[in-house]
């Protein structure tokens, strides 16, 4: 078990140069501007402190790190590894940067002393004490050498991160790859192997996620969470599981745990292809103000604040964004605010309060037929229907508390989320509006879907983890629960083309859905230190109570003219609604076998059973099938090691999954619908090499996904995805004795030819993103470009029947459609740091 904990360090305080032998007239201590948390050694229980002394050069970069007060048991290595990645503002003497030597005490508290909220994968709680004031210290010009001053007391408490549950359980530290250009927090997912993001609904519409042969649409096959708080919308009429992560400020994402498969008993509803757990944190202390201006009338104003005296998990952030978009009807406006406070209650209890708010209004170009674009009837970046677009809002609050009693860690979280969403999409043009005999004669009025929904979620989760020595080694057991209730109202209408005047109602319902789950997760070492069996079982009950307010639709025989929701059927008068309720229970065993590590290599194999609840529209009274089941199996090898100051991680994994009731996109419904059983087999490889001045990550995934009934390929999913991300930084030159630090970053993506219906294949996608920035003291300028090569590419490709009146007669045979990928964009950002604000 890779028990990761941390010292979230107390930046500033621990680190200052010690008294100088020479006494400069005016000396400023070096100040940490970014830090990396240490990882709590696996299997340890010590409450101890390691002192690391680092030598800084004139740029504030760590050139040497040594343990001056060792503890052993893996704590020294963990502290060293973290300390080498710290970056400081250099010490100043008379305004000139000089080298310095700094003591950093890493205080390790046993895992979960501070308590991690259950499911806050990869998250860190940290508290710190800062000295009442900084001692005036000196720095010797260019020559570190002051070691006689001990730093003030610093207490940093860390908690364990979730142990690995297999070779596809990835704990992704954003680190230096934060510099790679990205539009939103969801694009951080590209750091995980096999992820391809698409978007057919506009910049405010959740990204469509493809992962390991799954078309997860907007999240229905991936469980998303933020600091343990669920993101997926249960019962969203656009697709149950819809997960819009645009409310997350990417600058506030500290790490991301992606588990590609249902292998951890903590994973719940929607963890079919896997799960993605965002953990928040802000390394930069003080106030950060940023303004960005980019192509296509893009403006972004951002304020971030990390109170210097608080941990990196206390922060605030707010963003205002506006863009005209890169083509017709692609305007976007949004605002986002996030804030979190982390504190301690006594010595063994910590708490965290998180609040978020988000609102957006956006347009969408939708799809374009390839034949119309080729014939010049529509431009590549144009739209057929300028009424497409949407609105969304979200407000959420989460409170979690964790404490430790003896060998047991208790954690508890409650959360509440309010969501609204309106979505207007037209995939088929003028195709579905058939003339019914009971209707007034009409032409095709258009197929625009106008969907509106409001959702409220309230829930809680908790866990108790305990440890005991059996067979002479530490064994662990965690018991936990999750409970959530979702109330959803939804309506879907079709609007007359170009008017937003609805002419028929397809859905009008309300639903209450509950999910109570419990899990047990054990980590057992059967007497051999190099064998670990980890896993357990999860049990869930899913219940539905759905009220369909429009049971008898417009085209039912016997209905009145042009009235969509009727109070009459073949037997005479009836109320227009129908109520359906049901529930079902599922037990989900999950297990992982880990053998190793041997010189950094660990062999691992995992099996897991997962589930996804079906959409409320599929619920009928007492039908006990409210979920789809996935069986996943994989085996692989993982390497983790270091070479000098470089750290290397790599893995190779073969996997297979089977879903009994999978979903495939339906253009007429505008979302995924049931399509039978599917099977996926594939391979994933990933590697990342990190040092203090560069960071390189690369991953590749190849997969084949088939429908069980026919053996045909599952359409739309990519069978080959490659991604490379790089960042390198260094000092460029000096201005007024202060170095200018430059950073260069690049992201390269390749997506193979995706299978499309009717035996067709999409184009490939290859994009290059590049970013560059320079920082001098408290000022930074950055320039980034996405799709630098300005390749005209089709982000989403579909093959189905539509009729957008592009031709003289109705088009009723499948044709290629696409959503345009963005052309080359530039973004210029200016950032000013106020490190002392709030200090």
């Amino acid at each position, binding site marked *: 078990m890779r028990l990761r904990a941390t010292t979230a360090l107390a930046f500033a305080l621990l680190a200052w140069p010690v008294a100088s032998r020479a006494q400069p007239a005016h000396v400023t201590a070096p100040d940490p501007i970014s830090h990396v948390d240490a990882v709590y050694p696996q299997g340890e229980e010590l409450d101890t402190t390691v002192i690391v002394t680092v030598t800084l050069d004139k740029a504030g970069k760590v050139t040497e790190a040594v343990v001056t007060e060792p503890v052993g048991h893996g704590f020294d290595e963990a502290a060293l590894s973290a300390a080498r990645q710290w970056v400081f503002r250099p010490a100043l003497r008379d305004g000139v940067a000089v080298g310095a030597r700094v003591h950093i005490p890493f205080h390790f508290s046993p895992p979960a002393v501070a308590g991690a909220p259950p499911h806050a994968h990869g998250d860190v709680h940290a508290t710190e004490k800062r000295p009442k004031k900084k001692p005036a210290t000196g720095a010797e010009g260019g020559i570190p050498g002051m070691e006689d001053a001990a730093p003030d007391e610093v207490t940093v408490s860390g908690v364990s991160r979730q142990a690995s549950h297999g070779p596809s359980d990835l704990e992704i530290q954003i680190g230096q790859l934060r510099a790679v250009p990205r539009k939103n927090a969801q694009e951080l997912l590209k750091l995980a192997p096999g992820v391809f993001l698409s978007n057919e609904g506009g910049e405010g519409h959740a990204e469509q996620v493809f992962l390991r042969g799954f078309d997860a649409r907007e999240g229905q096959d991936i469980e998303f969470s933020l600091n343990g708080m669920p993101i997926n919308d249960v019962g969203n009429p656009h697709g149950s599981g819809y997960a819009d992560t645009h409310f997350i400020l990417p600058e506030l994402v500290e790490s991301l745990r992606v588990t590609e498969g249902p292998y951890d008993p903590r994973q719940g509803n929607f963890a079919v292809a896997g799960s993605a757990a965002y953990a928040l944190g802000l390394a930069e202390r003080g106030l950060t103000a940023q303004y960005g201006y980019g192509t296509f009338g893009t403006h972004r104003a951002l304020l971030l604040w990390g109170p210097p005296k608080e941990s990196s998990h206390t922060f605030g952030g707010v963003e205002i964004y506006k863009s005209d978009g890169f083509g017709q009807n692609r305007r976007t406006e949004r605002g986002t605010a996030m804030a979190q406070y982390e504190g301690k209650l006594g010595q063994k209890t910590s708490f965290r309060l998180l609040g978020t708010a988000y609102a957006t209004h956006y347009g969408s170009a939708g799809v374009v037929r390839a034949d119309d674009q080729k014939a010049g009837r529509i431009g590549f970046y144009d739209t057929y229907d300028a009424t497409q677009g949407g609105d969304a809002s979200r407000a959420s609050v989460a409170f979690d508390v964790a404490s430790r009693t003896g060998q047991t860690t208790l954690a508890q979280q409650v959360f509440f989320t309010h969501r609204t969403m309106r979505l207007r999409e037209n995939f088929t043009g003028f195709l579905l509006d058939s*003339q019914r005999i009971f209707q007034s*004669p009409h032409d095709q009025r258009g197929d625009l879907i106008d969907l509106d929904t409001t959702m409220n979620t309230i829930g809680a989760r908790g866990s108790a983890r305990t440890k005991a020595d059996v067979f002479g080694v530490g064994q662990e057991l965690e018991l936990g629960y999750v409970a959530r209730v979702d109330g959803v109202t939804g309506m879907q209408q079709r609007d007359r083309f170009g008017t937003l005047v609805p002419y028929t109602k397809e859905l009008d319902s309300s639903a209450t859905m509950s999910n109570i789950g419990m899990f047990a997760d054990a980590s057992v070492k059967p007497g051999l230190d190099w064998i670990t069996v980890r896993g357990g079982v999860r049990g869930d009950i899913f219940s539905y109570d759905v009220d369909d307010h429009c049971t008898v639709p417009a085209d039912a025989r016997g209905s009145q003219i042009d009235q969509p929701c009727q109070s009459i059927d073949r037997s005479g008068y009836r109320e227009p609604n129908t109520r359906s309720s049901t529930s079902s229970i599922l037990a989900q065993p999950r297990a992982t076998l880990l053998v190793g590590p041997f010189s950094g290599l660990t062999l691992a194999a995992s099996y897991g059973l997962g589930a996804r609840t079906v959409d409320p529209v599929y619920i009928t009274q007492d039908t006990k099938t409210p979920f789809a089941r996935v069986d996943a199996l994989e085996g692989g090898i993982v390497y983790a090691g270091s070479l000098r100051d470089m750290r290397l991680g790599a893995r190779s994994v073969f996997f297979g999954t089977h879903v009994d009731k999978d979903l495939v996109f*339906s253009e007429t419904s505008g979302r995924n*619908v049931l399509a039978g059983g599917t099977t996926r087999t594939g391979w994933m490889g990933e590697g990342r090499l990190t040092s203090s001045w560069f960071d390189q990550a690369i991953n590749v995934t*190849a997969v084949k996904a088939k429908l069980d009934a*026919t053996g045909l*390929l599952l359409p739309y999913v990519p069978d080959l995805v490659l991604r490379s991300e790089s960042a390198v930084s260094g000092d460029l030159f000096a201005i007024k004795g202060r170095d200018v630090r430059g950073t260069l970053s690049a992201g390269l993506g390749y997506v193979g030819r995706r299978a499309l219906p009717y035996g*067709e294949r999409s184009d490939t996608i290859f994009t290059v993103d590049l970013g560059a920035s320079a920082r001098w003291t408290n000022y930074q300028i950055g320039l980034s470009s996405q799709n630098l090569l300005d390749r005209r590419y089709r982000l989403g490709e579909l093959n189905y029947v539509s009729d957008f009146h592009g031709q003289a007669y109705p088009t009723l045979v499948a044709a290629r459609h696409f959503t345009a990928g963005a052309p080359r964009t530039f973004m210029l950002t200016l950032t000013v740091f106020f490190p002392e604000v709030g200090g």
Partner: protein
Amino acid sequence: MSHTRPLGSALGLALALGLGCSGSTGSQVFSFHAAARGTDGAKGGAYVFSTPSGWSVSLTRATLRVGPVYVNHAVPISQGRATGGYSSGRTIAQVLAQVTVDALSPSPVPFASDGEGVADLAQTGEVWLLPDGGDDSTTILDVAGTATRAGVVVPFAGTLAIDASWLAPASAATPGESPLLAIRQVTDIPATFTTQPGGTLVLRVEPARWFDAVSDFASLSANGAGDGGAFRLGASGLASDATTVAIFRGLHAHQGVYRLEWQSP
């Protein structure tokens, strides 16, 4: 380095297993040639046939404006099930063009553009008889000939356009029962073939069956005679004489009048 070997080996194995761009979602979209032709029975510029009501007709002119043409069948494909009014996968081939076919000539006349479709089993077809653009006066049918029975000789000639005058009065309960587009469509035309790449769709028009429902050509006399003494077809839609109405309905007969064939290369 040694730790790269597992990755390399795995990648090689993956490729060996055939992961990547292989397999299919089924079926195929392709283009094909399309043409329309008339009967084989015309000789010397005239097509002589008998009607069920005992008339011997010598048809000397018979042109019909047809298009677009759709070929239908619904089979399961690797795609989500449709829930709307249109059944995805129903139409497997289409010819989005028109042609004026000489129903007395067996020579195929190609449509203005190729059709496109997917490889599948065809079971029914649709021939739409649309006017040119929005011009409802477009001539769809142009016929001339002589009908003879028991010594009664009725020369006739005329044209038909399909406009709102052919709409039956709608009932209050079912106002949408018969929209204009519906009377410009001939549906449920039998078709039994498999569309395949490289083939040609041929629409055969049998003009004799237009007159199957005509009981008395003499009713055309109500419309008066035109140049050459031939009686004209009616111009009042459903209010026209019985013969004109019968010919109009004959145009919409889905059995015998139209036949869709697939000629493989």
